[in-house]
C-alpha cells in the first residue's frame, strides 16, 4: 500500500511535467495547426538561460521568472520570424521549419554553454516528506511541481475563458477569417499564442531539469512524453493535455515501479495505441464537431 501511494504521487508529479509540455504543444496546435517539434529545444534553451540567471544572482526565484519571460520572448520570435512565412502553406514546410529550429537551438546551446550536462537546482529539497516515521517518494519539490503546473494550467484556463483577450485568442484559433472580419488582429493573437505556449514549456523545463540534468539534448525525451500526453488528450484540448499528462505519468510510474523502468518507453507506446484504438481522436477530442 505504501508503495502504491509512492508510485501514485510520483506519477502525478512527473505527469504534471508532461502536462505542461503537452499544454505548450496543444496551444500551438490549436492556434496554428502546427506540431512544434522545437518545443523540447525551446524549453532546453530557456532552462539554460534560467541556469545562467541563477548563477549570476544566486536567486532561484529570479531564474524561474527569467525562464518564463525568456519563453514568452523566444515563442514570439519563433512565430514572427520563422513560422509566419510558412503559415497557410503545406504542413510539411512548418514541420521542417520547427525541426530546423530544434537543430539550431541545440547547436547554439552547445556552442554557448557546452555539451557536458550540468546540474540544475530544484526549488525545494528533493528529500521525500516524512509521514508517520516512513519517508514518502514525494518531496517538497514534487509538491511545488504539481502546484506550479496546476496554477499555470488553471490560470491559462481562466485567461482563455474569462477575459476579452482570451476570447480573441480562442476565436482566432477556431476561425481566423471570421475573427478578422470582426476586427480581431489575428496575426498578433498567433504571436501571443506561441509566446504563452513557449512559456508553459519553459515551466516544464525548469521543473524537470533537476531530474534529467541540463544539456543540449537532455530534454528530447520530455518532448516525446509531452507529445504522447498531448495526443492522449486529443491534441486540441488544454484540459485533455493536462489529463493526458497525469494519466501518462501514473501509468509510467506504475510500470516502472511494479515491473521495470526499462519497460517505460514501451508502456507509453502501448498506452497511446490502446487509447487511440478506443478513441481515435484522443480522450477529449472535439475533432468531429469541428469539421462540420
Amino acid at each position, binding site marked *: 500500500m505504501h508503495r502504491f501511494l509512492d508510485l501514485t504521487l510520483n506519477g502525478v508529479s512527473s505527469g504534471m511535467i508532461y502536462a505542461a509540455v503537452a499544454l505548450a504543444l496543444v496551444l500551438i496546435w490549436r492556434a496554428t495547426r502546427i506540431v512544434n517539434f522545437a518545443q523540447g529545444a525551446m524549453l532546453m534553451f530557456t532552462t539554460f538561460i534560467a541556469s545562467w540567471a541563477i548563477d549570476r544572482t544566486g536567486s532561484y526565484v529570479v531564474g524561474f521568472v527569467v525562464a518564463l519571460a525568456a519563453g514568452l520572448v523566444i515563442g514570439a520570435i519563433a512565430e514572427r520570424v520563422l513560422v509566419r512565412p510558412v503559415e497557410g502553406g503545406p504542413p510539411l514546410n512548418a514541420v521542417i521549419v520547427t525541426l530546423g529550429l530544434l537543430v539550431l537551438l541545440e547547436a547554439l546551446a552547445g556552442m554557448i554553454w557546452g555539451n557536458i550536462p550540468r546540474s540544475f537546482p530544484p526549488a525545494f529539497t528533493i528529500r521525500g516528506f516524512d509521514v508517520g516515521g516512513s519517508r514518502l517518494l514525494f518531496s517538497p519539490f514534487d509538491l511545488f511541481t504539481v502546484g506550479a503546473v496546476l496554477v499555470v494550467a488553471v490560470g491559462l484556463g481562466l485567461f482563455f475563458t474569462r477575459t*476579452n483577450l482570451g*476570447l*480573441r485568442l*480562442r*476565436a482566432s484559433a*477556431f*476561425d481566423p*477569417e*471570421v*475573427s*478578422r*472580419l*470582426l*476586427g*480581431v*488582429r*489575428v496575426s498578433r493573437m498567433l504571436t501571443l499564442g506561441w509566446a504563452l505556449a513557449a512559456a508553459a514549456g519553459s515551466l516544464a523545463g525548469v521543473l524537470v531539469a533537476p531530474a534529467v540534468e541540463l544539456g543540449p539534448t537532455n530534454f528530447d525525451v520530455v518532448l516525446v512524453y509531452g507529445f504522447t500526453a498531448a495526443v492522449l488528450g486529443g491534441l486540441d484540448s488544454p484540459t485533455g493535455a493536462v489529463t493526458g499528462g497525469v494519466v501518462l505519468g501514473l501509468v509510467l510510474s506504475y510500470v516502472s515501479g511494479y515491473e521495470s523502468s526499462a519497460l517505460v518507453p514501451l508502456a507509453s507506446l502501448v498506452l497511446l495505441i490502446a487509447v487511440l484504438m478506443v478513441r481515435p481522436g484522443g480522450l477529449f477530442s*472535439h475533432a468531429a*464537431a*469541428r469539421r*462540420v
Partner: protein
Amino acid sequence: MLEVVDLVTSYGAVRALDGVSLTVPSGSITAVLGANGAGKSSLLRTISGLVRPRAGTIRLDGADITGRAPEEIVRLGVAHVPEGRGVIAELTVEENLRLGGLWRRDRADQATALAEAYELFPALEERRRRPASTLSGGERQMLSLGRALMPRPKLMLLDEPSLGLAPLLASRIMALVARLRERTGLTVLLVEQNARSALSIADHGVVLGLGRVVAAEHPDKLAADAGLRHAYLGF
C-alpha cells in the same frame, strides 16, 4: 457611402470580378443578384478586405480603402456577414456576440449593444450560454446579424442571408433587414440568389454575370425585364 470602380479580383487564373463598378448610396438597400459563380461573394469579400483586388478602387465615404486589411476595414464601420453565416461554433452564443463589439473597447457601450442584440433577437438570450453549434440555421443567421450589429456599423455587407432557410424564415430575415434600415439608417449591400425576396426590400438592384455588371436598375424594372429574369434571376 460606398463606391466601387472597375474592380478586378482573380483567384489564380480565374477572374471572379472583371471590372465591376457600382455605387451604394447612404441609407439604401442595394441588392446584388446573379447566378452561382457570378462573382457576388467575391465582390463582398473584396470590399471587406478578405481578398485583395488586382485592380480598381473601393471608396468608403470618399476615402480609398482598397487593399486594406479586414480588421482595419471593420473599424471604419463596415460589417461583413459572410456566406454560411460565419458563426464560430465552438464559442457560446454570447461569446460570439461579444466578439463582434470587442474592438470598440468601450465597455459600457458594449453592454448596451449586447442588450440591444438580445432585445432584437430574444431567442438568442435564452440560449446565451449554449455553444453556437447547438443553434438552428435561422438562429445562426440571427446570431451573425446580431454580432455584426454590435459595433454599430454604417455599412453592412450581407452574403446570402436566406441561404438554407425555410421560405418563411427567409422572408422574416428580409423584413428584419428592412426594419433595421428604417430604424438605424444602416446602409446595406445585400447579395442574394433568391432574387425575388431581395428585390422586395431593395431600393437598387445590380445584376452580375460572370464577374461583370449586366444591369443596374430600380428593382421594379429589373423584375419586369423578362429576358433578364430568365437569363440571370431564375424566376
